[in-house]
């Protein structure tokens, strides 16, 4: 009996008590948590290189899928067991909460050292996403709180071979042309006009925002977030109607509203669609899925010439330093090294991602270099003075999915979005 009690205590209580406690960081080791499966090997190689150069061991820990990664980071923040370096997948308000809870180090003094040498390496548009400005809505001390490690730009993609077959020498510039070109592919040997991972609402949202800004201008768009313009405004109705037009024109892949981006990339890489809407990371994805595919990027098909086209983009992934980490300075030193030209060029070669720093133009493949021409037209929620409530975004995304599934009309969706916004505001 006594033996049994001891066994119970040993196997149940001891792991319960000690299993949950925080692990002490290993000496001379920097722990990095990330979710980027495509860069796993490249990161390991860089860690080996850093150890050879400095003697400091860097351990990259991949946590996947992103939802699990996010949960892990939140739980670790609660338990104050965050690693030395980590990233946050979420809105800027979430990053603000982490800063207020003193989980993230202010990197401004380090960025400003040596006449802002570190800060000046980055594309301003990329760095902008991790900067909290004066009077920010998160109410955190102004400063730079993260280190961008790459840049992301959302663009339309076209299949060059298919477009040539249709007799067009250049991709469409307007929405009407886009529909016209795509409609020519409809039903031809299992090919479709347009494919996109619209099962992931953010891709719909990014596109809707690009069209909204092109139609009404950035100022009016931002006024919607401030509640000065309603989502039932004729301009917004027109934006929602664009998705209905896409559906009615028959150019969309049948299951587009439930498709993941991975599936969409797979379909495009296999030549099943003429157009797609995807991020700059897709260069790497298409290369892996089908090295033979001929494709090119093009800007948003315009719906108005009154306002300029703004492209969704900026910092793709960024790393934060744990304010409480005993290795804080070592972690910052590593990130400085990590964002130096040599390492960024290495990442370009290995992953085909757009770098976060400016000085790599000469080392970039043609496709990436062309994408950087759009950097001056970028827009992103993290750079806006205020952000839309996540529950409103949820209703917009779901509504757009329902439009492309033919279940709701644009005016029904506009009304529902505004109702949600009003309800949240009343509260």
């Amino acid at each position, binding site marked *: 009996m006594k033996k049994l*009690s001891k066994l*119970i205590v040993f196997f*149940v209580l001891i792991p*319960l008590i000690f299993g949950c406690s925080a692990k002490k960081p290993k000496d001379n080791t920097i722990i990095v948590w990330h979710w980027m499966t495509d860069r796993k090997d490249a990161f390991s190689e860089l860690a080996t290189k850093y150890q050879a150069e400095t003697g400091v061991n860097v351990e990259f820990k991949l946590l996947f899928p992103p*939802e699990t990664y*996010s*949960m892990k980071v*939140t739980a670790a*923040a*609660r338990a104050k067991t965050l690693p030395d370096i980590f990233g946050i*997948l*979420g*809105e800027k308000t*979430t990053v603000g*909460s*982490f800063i*207020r*809870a003193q*989980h993230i180090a202010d990197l401004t003094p380090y960025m400003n050292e040596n006449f802002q040498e570190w800060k000046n390496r980055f594309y301003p548009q990329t760095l902008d996403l991790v900067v909290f400005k004066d009077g920010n809505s998160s109410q955190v001390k102004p400063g730079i709180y993260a280190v961008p490690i790459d840049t992301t730009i959302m663009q339309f993609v076209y299949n060059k071979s298919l477009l040539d077959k249709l007799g067009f020498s250049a991709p469409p510039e307007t929405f009407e042309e886009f529909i016209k070109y795509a409609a020519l592919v409809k039903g031809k040997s*299992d090919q*479709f006009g347009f*494919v996109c991972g619209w*099962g*992931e609402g953010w891709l719909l949202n990014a596109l809707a925002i690009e069209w909204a800004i092109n139609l009404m201008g950035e100022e009016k768009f931002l006024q919607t977030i401030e509640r000065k313009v309603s989502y039932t405004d004729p301009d917004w109705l027109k934006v929602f109607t664009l998705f209905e037009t896409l559906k009615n024109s028959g150019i969309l*892949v*049948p*299951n*587009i*509203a*439930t498709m*993941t981006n991975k*599936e969409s990339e*797979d*379909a495009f890489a*296999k030549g*099943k*669609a003429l157009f797609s809407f995807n991020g700059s990371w897709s260069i790497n994805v298409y290369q892996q899925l089908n090295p033979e595919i001929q494709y090119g990027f093009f800007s948003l098909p315009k719906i108005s010439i009154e306002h300029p086209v703004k492209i969704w983009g900026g910092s793709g992934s960024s790393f934060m330093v744990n304010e409480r980490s005993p290795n804080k300075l070592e972690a910052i030193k590593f990130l400085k090294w990590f964002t130096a030209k040599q390492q960024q060029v290495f990442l370009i070669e290995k992953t085909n991602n757009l770098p976060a720093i400016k000085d790599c133009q000469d080392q970039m493949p043609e496709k990436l270099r062309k994408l950087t021409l759009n950097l001056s037209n970028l827009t992103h929620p993290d750079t806006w003075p205020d952000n839309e*409530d*996540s*529950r409103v975004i*949820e*209703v917009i995304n*779901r*509504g*757009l*999915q*329902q439009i*492309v*599934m*033919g*279940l709701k009309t644009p005016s029904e969706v506009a009304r*529902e979005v505004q*109702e949600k916004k009003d*309800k949240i505001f009343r*509260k």
Partner: protein
Amino acid sequence: MNASFKENSLNFSFVAPALFIFSIFYIYPFFYSFILSLTNYDLIGDFNFKNYYVGFSNFRDVFTDKDWWKSMYNGGYITFWALTFQNILAFALALAVDKVVRLKKFYRVVFFILPVLSEIIIGLLMKQLLIGEPTGRNVFNNLLNSAGLGFMAQDWIGGDRVRMITALVHCWKGFGWAFVILFAGLQTIPEQLYEAAKIDGANAWQQFRKITIPLVMPVITLVVVLTILGTMQAFAMILALNAGAGGETTVPVMIIFSHLGGASKLAGLACAEGLILGAILVAVSFSMFFVSKKVREKYGVLPS
């Protein structure tokens, strides 16, 4: 007195480890969820109840949230199909197999293969079978074409029939599980009762109504309650199959998950949603046990 105290202490010590674990993993989370539901805490900083307290506004938000009730409707719709189509089919097959003399174990194993598979696997597998043309893996449509029924080929999980398809996939997965439990219940009914009824001149329908149904009623109740609990809390299979299909198959747990783990970190709201869902399910479960008791009383299995 002393002996009794000693005896009680000894008895309690046997229960103590289980009680300790139960308290940590069930009772404490329940109360903590209730406390969180009264706040707008984002799960990130240090928790201070006073600073985050918002009263019962999260509960009010849930009760007036159309999306939440739509998700309850979606869950209810799938549950309706699981309770009727899935369980009636499972019961009918369990009755048939119960009368089979040979290969009973074989049938039990065959029908239990699906419930053993992970929900994610079922979701992804069905997605591959039902998905539209572009990825070239639309097995179901290809089969229809081969059978000369090409006019029926369509986008099975993207159109307006997505809720029905999701319900059927859920039934397909849950069917074997209901079958095994009902089959086990049927096998506990003594054969002598049927023989005595036959001698008394009872026909098959009378035997089924007066013997099988009353005696298997506790098992049916259990299956009904577990079906309701399981279906209303379904999540992974639907996420893998169609990710909610624009709200058409979004079920309550998906909403809770998006508020808890999404970019917004609305933990208080998510906890309020969880507690409301829990309360509804507890009420439904108890009412089912009450109905079961009444049926058994009516047929004399239980004294009224």
